[in-house]
């Protein structure tokens, strides 16, 4: 875990003081809403349908128990006892009062947390692999590289008024759990023949109105040149990204319009100019940060074999744990997707419980996943039963990771002022209907967004659902064939949309046809779709 030094703490404390002053000026009417809105947005505060919403940054999705307890405290003290984990590995609170925000941000700062740049046209929270430092296929822990970016991008004087928001993801594994091909910039740690680490740089991916996969613009960037190269990319984007149309303002449009080769050439040209300016910190800075992320000392002689005689426990171990790189250990994913519940929501009591478990059994670490679940990354297998029992008592032991009821859903029209349709009720209905058969269906990723902005990642869903407004009525489009993983692809719309019950029936028909077409239990829905194409599913739904 990264720990703040005096510099980090001073910057976060100054931010709290600054915002306290800005809120006071707004409440005294010394500052108009027009001038204030961008200031509150840059502190993660939106005005939503029912109240203000606060988005707290969870850098690269990593928390310790002290921080998760603070998130629980905030839910109790300032909200209505719960929070919502998001597809950006952040947490949102839905019932915020502006006048209480400065105290809340001070509470957060006391545990080395903040809401810097969780909204606005700036560089957002850096996301990463939720299995960092635990996954067996990892080249190196991506989080030091993400922390370096967090610091570089915080209050950047040149890149705080970009054409549009800007999202960066970093991963260090062959298996892509961070959806790097769907980010404005994706960074993948790679290794050369000498065992040296470098960076592969992808640019121009994204979802939203114009979904596009990112292009590799550099196969190998020396780590020493990391930040100056990022400056070059951002400067080309800041100067040349479109500002005339909000829907064409993301970097993916610029990359697409110029072509990846020409975009890369412009970046290299800019980089040649900025590289000599001394923008890159010395290697000692990355080493200093990396020292905070030393892998925990785990007992490799811990027993691998555990008592799996309780079938419910055995099922949970099979579905919700992954192998850890150290023998005798496991990575536990805690599902926040109990069928019928709100995807990604956790109560303050649940957060406290998970914090206790992390402290007692998981090296004091918790991760947030972009699929809106939580992870205990370093768990001895002989502690799994104790953990499972505790989770079960709190409604957190649902064994459905990456299955049909593990649905990603944005808040939708129940909370969000941008939404055109509700997402959560669709997720609830589908989860309840599909849960009984999900073990047979295997991996199936359903993702639901309540508007074209795509916070629910519908374009990356094996089955995606997009809520739209049709003459004042909620209407849902069905998309098939997306993936946000290393085999990334963009889901395509199947045909005309449906109402709330219609979309649930349509998904059931798609799944029924998949079961008929599937070659065997190892063929996932996505594989079948890729093999047979959209037609059989179109026929099943509309035929």
């Amino acid at each position, binding site marked *: 875990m990264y720990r703040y030094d005096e510099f980090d703490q001073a910057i976060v404390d100054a931010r709290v003081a600054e915002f306290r002053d800005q809120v006071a000026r707004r409440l005294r009417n010394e500052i108009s809403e027009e001038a204030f809105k961008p200031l509150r947005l840059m502190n993660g505060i939106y005005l939503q349908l029912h109240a203000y919403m606060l988005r707290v940054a969870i850098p690269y999705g990593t928390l310790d128990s002290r921080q998760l307890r603070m998130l629980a405290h905030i839910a109790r003290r300032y909200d209505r006892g719960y929070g919502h984990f998001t597809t950006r590995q952040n947490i949102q609170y839905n019932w915020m009062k502006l006048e209480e925000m400065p105290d809340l941000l001070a509470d957060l700062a006391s545990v080395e947390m903040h809401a810097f740049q969780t909204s606005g046209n700036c560089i957002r929270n850096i996301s990463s692999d939720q299995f960092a430092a635990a996954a067996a296929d990892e080249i190196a822990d991506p989080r030091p590289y993400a922390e370096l970016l967090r610091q570089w991008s915080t209050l950047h004087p040149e890149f705080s008024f970009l054409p549009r928001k800007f999202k960066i993801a970093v991963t260090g594994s062959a298996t892509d759990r961070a959806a790097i091909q769907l980010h404005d910039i994706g960074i993948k740690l790679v290794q050369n023949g000498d065992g040296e680490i470098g960076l592969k740089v992808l640019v121009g991916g994204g979802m939203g109105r114009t979904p596009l996969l990112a292009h590799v613009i550099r196969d190998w960037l020396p780590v020493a040149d990391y930040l100056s190269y990022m400056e070059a990319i951002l400067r080309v984007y800041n100067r040349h990204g479109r500002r005339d149309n909000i829907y064409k303002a993301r970097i993916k449009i610029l990359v697409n319009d110029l072509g990846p080769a020409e975009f890369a050439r412009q970046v290299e040209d800019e980089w040649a100019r900025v590289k000599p300016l001394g923008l890159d910190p010395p290697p000692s800075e990355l080493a200093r940060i990396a020292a905070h992320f030393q892998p925990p000392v785990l007992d490799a002689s811990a027993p691998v074999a555990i008592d799996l005689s309780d079938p419910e426990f055995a099922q949970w171990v099979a579905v919700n744990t992954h192998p850890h790189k150290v023998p005798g250990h496991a990575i536990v994913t805690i599902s926040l997707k109990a069928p019928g519940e709100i995807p990604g929501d956790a109560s303050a009591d649940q957060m406290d419980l998970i914090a206790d478990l992390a402290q007692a059994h998981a090296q004091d670490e918790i991760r947030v996943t972009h699929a809106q679940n939580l992870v205990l990354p370093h768990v001895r297998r002989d502690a799994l039963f104790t953990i499972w029992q505790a989770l079960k008592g709190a409604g957190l032991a649902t064994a459905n990771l990456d299955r049909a009821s593990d649905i990603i859903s944005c808040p939708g029209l129940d909370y969000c002022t941008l939404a055109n349709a509700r997402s959560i009720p669709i997720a609830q209905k589908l989860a309840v209907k599909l849960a009984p058969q999900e073990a047979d269906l295997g991996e199936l990723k359903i993702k639901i967004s309540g508007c074209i902005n795509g916070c629910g990642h519908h374009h990356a869903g094996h089955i995606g659902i997009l809520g739209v407004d049709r003459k004042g*009525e909620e209407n849902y489009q069905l998309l098939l064939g997306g993936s946000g993983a290393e085999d990334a692809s963009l889901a395509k719309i199947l045909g005309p949309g449906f109402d709330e019950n219609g979309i649930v029936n349509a998904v059931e028909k798609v799944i029924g046809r998949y079961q008929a077409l599937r070659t065997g239990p190892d063929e996932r829905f996505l594989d079948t779709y890729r093999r047979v194409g959209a037609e059989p599913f179109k026929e099943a739904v509309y035929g």
Partner: protein
Amino acid sequence: MPRLLTGNRVETGDVIWWTGTGWSLHLKDAVAVDADGEALIARFAPQERINDLALIDADATDAGWRPRTTRERVRAVGPSVRPDFALPSIPVESI
């Protein structure tokens, strides 16, 4: 069609409705402003105390106002998925 004036209080973000003499947290207290709506917005906007001032269309029913759009019904009641927080203006299941 009747039009209601609504907005969010700057200090708290609360959804509020114009009652003819002041603001209420409850849709049931709203009055139709109809043709006066624009003038009221012109009066309140410069005071900078209410954000997102807007006129919304609603139908008068036996049970009170029913906003025309799902969005405004959700805004008036609360999240349809959290009936425990529902304001008493219209039944949450009728959103």
